[in-house]
């Protein structure tokens, strides 16, 4: 009985594993905490410090403090060893919505030195690598991965959510609209789809399947904080997309000329069935066969099993991947529509190991 209870608790805890900042934290409130560090979890994509905080009555409570993405922190020269177990720190932050002893740190001060730690270095992160030509295969095709002998992956996207090309829609990084009345600008929704989208917005994306560790199908797979990479296998007639987010899933794009699967023959999946071909330096991928168990973008864009995506990948230079997508789902949208963004190359690094469930277990099962 006890084991059953523990396993259920673990599963439920995953609910928060990849939750949006807006959905997780109450950004209108502040807390100030002081205590000794009991544990440091340098876990991608969110690192945590745990401290014991004593209240006025002398009762000690252990708090989890989210301090940012460890990759970003390391680029700014911070390390897990910046603080040590037993160090006393003072933290200002934003408390969790669910009243758990959890906060998003906005300021961390090491008491013994008075130094502010884990603050962005600014210029270091902002520096962009010098542009170089995209690497190519011997036959002249542009490579979507690293050049031979090099390593790297695709990291930060220039947009955090999918909106129709040309639309100017203020929203936060979770895809929450600043003004809900802008919903019509995001995409050409059918009435039911707009109502669903607005419901998800009003409820702060609380039902997002991605926050429950389910895969980021559709365009969203190219916007996760964990990045992705292409493994091109021309001899096998396929390209693998390896995803850093969503539990390191993969997706297969067949480039061997096979026909696209049709209707009822397809087993519906999170990533669908994809076939691709090259049009000069652009990889064009047609995908169908999606299930309805995911949101195809942060912010809560709905879709149905009728979803058909046409994705275009091009690499104008070494450091830039251009992603363009046409969304065609006549059961959800009144017409096909386009969106896209660019993605930054992370040179000389591999995707960091990240498992959604592990992040949940380390952080929230307490």
């Amino acid at each position: 009985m006890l084991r059953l209870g523990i396993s259920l608790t673990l599963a439920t805890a995953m609910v928060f594993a990849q939750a949006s900042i807006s959905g997780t934290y109450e950004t209108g409130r502040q807390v100030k905490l002081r205590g000794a560090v009991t544990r440091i979890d340098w876990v991608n994509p969110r690192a945590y410090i745990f401290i014991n905080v004593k209240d006025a009555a002398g009762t000690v409570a252990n708090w989890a403090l989210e301090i940012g993405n460890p990759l970003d922190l390391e680029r700014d020269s911070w390390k897990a060893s910046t603080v040590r177990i037993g160090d006393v720190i003072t933290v200002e932050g934003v408390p969790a919505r669910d009243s758990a002893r959890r906060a998003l740190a906005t300021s961390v001060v090491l008491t013994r030195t008075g130094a502010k730690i884990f603050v962005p270095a600014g210029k270091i992160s902002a520096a962009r690598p010098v542009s170089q030509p995209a690497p190519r295969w011997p036959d002249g095709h542009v490579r979507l991965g690293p050049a031979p002998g090099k390593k790297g992956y695709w990291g930060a996207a220039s947009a955090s959510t999918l909106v129709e090309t040309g639309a100017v829609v203020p929203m936060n990084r979770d895809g929450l609209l600043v003004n809900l009345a802008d919903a019509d600008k995001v995409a050409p929704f059918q009435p039911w789809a707009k109502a669903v989208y607005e419901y998800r917005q009003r409820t702060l994306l609380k039902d997002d399947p991605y926050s429950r560790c389910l895969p980021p199908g559709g365009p969203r797979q190219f916007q996760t904080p964990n990045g992705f990479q292409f493994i091109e296998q021309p001899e096998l007639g396929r390209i693998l997309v390896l995803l850093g987010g969503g539990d390191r899933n993969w997706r297969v794009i067949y480039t061997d000329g096979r026909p696209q699967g049709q209707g009822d023959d397809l087993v519906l999946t999170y990533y669908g069935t994809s076939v691709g071909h090259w049009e000069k330096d652009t990889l064009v991928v047609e995908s169908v066969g999606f299930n309805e168990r995911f949101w195809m973008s942060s912010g809560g864009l709905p879709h149905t099993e009728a979803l058909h995506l046409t994705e275009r990948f091009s690499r104008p230079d070494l450091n830039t991947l251009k992603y363009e997508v046409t969304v065609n789902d006549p059961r959800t949208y009144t017409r096909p529509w386009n969106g896209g963004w660019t993605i930054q190359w992370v040179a000389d690094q591999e995707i960091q190991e990240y498992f959604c469930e592990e992040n949940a277990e380390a952080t929230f099962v307490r």
Partner: protein
Amino acid sequence: MRTKRVFAGLVFACLGVWAQQGHPLTGTWNGDWGATVTQRNQVTIVMNWDGKNVTGIINPGPDSAPLASVYVDPTNWTVRFEADAKDASGKPVHIAAEGHLADIGSYHRTLVGSWTQGAVKGDFKLTRD
């Protein structure tokens, strides 16, 4: 008792992992309707959104009846549907129901309202399976 409730809550939370995220009416709905609290009739409705209309059937199987019409108002999630079925003696009977779809983000979303079958008026509650 408290432990049972906690476990039930956890089980439902875990089930939410596989929620269908498309049109809120798509799927299988189970529940009952009746004129009184004690006189209830089990009912299953399977619905599907085809892009223009919601189609479906009541009680799939030998005694099934297709939904003749389904109206949905997404501004308040009012749902009305009608069907022509047969009663226990095989006589044609018209069904008309109107309800409200609640908690559309939940896997176990509900549809609750009034149900008229022939001359009998009652209420119904359906939960998405």
